[in-house]
């Protein structure tokens, strides 16, 4: 069996393989540690962490939808100080630990990062810019290029650690926001976060989620996520972590062919606790089977025009 090289680079992070769990779907790793050796992962991404402890939303927080899941957890987390202790324990795994950072004001994000800078050994931050910004009437930071760039600049000034910006798909032009984040100093981008959605119980005639709306994830969102990864990787130079509906290695390979340097797996863990290691093995199998020596060879490969092919690399418009 030929060894294939699965390693990739995200900012300053060297990942031995391109697979990591998605934020909020893997706790602080503790819950999945009994299932397999977590040091097999390319990196670990822990849940959304805020400066202060956050109790989260009242129940009901989940609703299953066709091939999808709506969640409105409300960022339940113990706050940056307590999270740092959990993050530092993960250091023993010897893999990069990426901390998803959230807040409702620029100062919230900065405070969380300042605490994590001094208290934690985190390798990187993933800024979750899908949170409503109290200062702009609850509009999410990541819905406008200017507010995204302003936030990224502020956080960039606080850290030399790898800075990843996690983009929201609930926008009209994700490419503009991706560019703004990259220009403001992001080392990498991750996309997509959940798509805003809703479910109503026809028996009680009330929304299922106590929060009324929630974020859609799972196989249902995969085509949307894939399209956005294609568009963003066509427009920016920084590496992209692709996610949204990846359930198996075939899905992961699709994202990499679209241009993602690495992939993250969220909802699929809930159905299959072994989803991440199975995807790692499956990617290696795909590369071997198709004669690739390194995973980086397939990144963006679907965009390369083939002789006689009709694929326009830049063309992602569509008229129904």
């Amino acid at each position: 069996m030929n060894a294939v090289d699965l390693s990739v680079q995200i900012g300053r992070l060297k990942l031995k393989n391109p697979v990591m769990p998605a934020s909020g779907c893997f706790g602080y790793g503790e819950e999945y540690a009994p299932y397999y050796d977590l040091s097999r992962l390319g990196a670990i991404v822990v849940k959304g962490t805020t400066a202060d402890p956050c109790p989260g939303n009242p129940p009901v927080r989940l609703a299953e939808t066709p091939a999808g899941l709506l969640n409105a957890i409300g960022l339940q987390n113990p706050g940056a100080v307590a999270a740092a202790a959990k993050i530092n324990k993960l250091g023993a795994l010897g893999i990069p630990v990426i901390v998803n950072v959230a807040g409702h004001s620029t100062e919230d994000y900065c405070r969380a990062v300042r605490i994590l800078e001094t208290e934690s050994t985190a390798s990187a931050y993933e800024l979750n810019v899908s949170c409503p910004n109290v200062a702009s009437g609850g509009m999410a930071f990541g819905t406008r290029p200017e507010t995204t760039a302003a936030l990224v600049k502020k956080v960039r000034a606080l850290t030399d650690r790898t800075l990843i910006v996690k983009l929201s798909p609930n926008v009209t032009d994700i490419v503009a926001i991706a560019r703004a984040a990259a220009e403001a100093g992001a080392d990498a981008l991750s996309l997509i976060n959940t798509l805003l959605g809703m479910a109503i119980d026809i028996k009680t005639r009330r929304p299922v989620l106590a929060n009324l709306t929630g974020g859609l994830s799972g196989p249902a969102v995969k085509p949307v996520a894939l399209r956005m990864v294609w568009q963003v990787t066509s427009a920016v130079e920084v590496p992209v972590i692709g996610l949204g509906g990846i359930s198996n290695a075939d899905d992961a390979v699709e994202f990499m062919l679209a241009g993602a340097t690495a992939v993250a797996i969220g909802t699929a863990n809930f159905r299959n606790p072994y989803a991440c290691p199975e995807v790692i093995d499956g990617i290696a199998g795909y590369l071997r089977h198709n004669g690739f020596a390194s995973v980086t060879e397939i990144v963006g490969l679907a965009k390369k025009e083939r002789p006689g092919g009709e694929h326009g690399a830049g063309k992602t418009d569509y008229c129904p």
Partner: protein
Amino acid sequence: MPVGDYRIKEIRKVADGIFRLAFAGNMEAEPGQFLQVAVGRTHDPLLRRPLSIHDCVDGEVVLLFHPAGRGTNLLAEKKPGDSLNVLGPLGKGFPLPAGQTAVLVAGGIGIAPLFYLAKVLKGAGKEIVFLAGARDTGSLYIPPELPALAADLRFTTDDGSAGRRGLVTEELPAILDRIKGEVYACGPLPMLREVARIARNSGVPCHVSLEARMACGVGACQGCTVAAVAGDWQKYKRVCVEGPVFGSGEVIL
């Protein structure tokens, strides 16, 4: 708590709206623990369904379920010989009573975990009072082994078509006046509230098994929370790991 494929040995309807499913396998499970059952192999339905362990003997695990929606209806269509993908046992089960007597209160499908509890308590030499309530005689399921396990077994139906007519909780105050046993309950939320209230008035400990919508079942997603009584930032507890069994004073029912 691994993931495994098991072979279904038997599946049959045992009462109106109640199926009993037995699969071959060996598990070490506490009463009150549950399994996350994959009802299909495709993306839809996406999530596993949490179901309590109804019985667990050498080489066999039994579920008792009410087809309540899409997932459990698909499960009811399974046939002997089919394989069943299961994650578990999961969660924290019922603690043993400190004293000699336990009073078990089951509403409807709530009998699923309480039957297994009765078996384990009997094995530990405890005396059991078992109250089972159902809508009517058709939907009342009393597992054949139960009468031998419970020193005192009583049942109630809403319409009086079997046992006493009324609510399963109505006899509880008198029973607790007499024996001061520890209370264990599983059933609809209004029933659990009433059981908890009666137990509190009688000054006996009360353990309730709760339901919540779940995604991961292992504590990773924070989706299955119930409001906790504790005062710190941790306003919510996860039913899948801190429960599904809670002391009735720990949570806001």
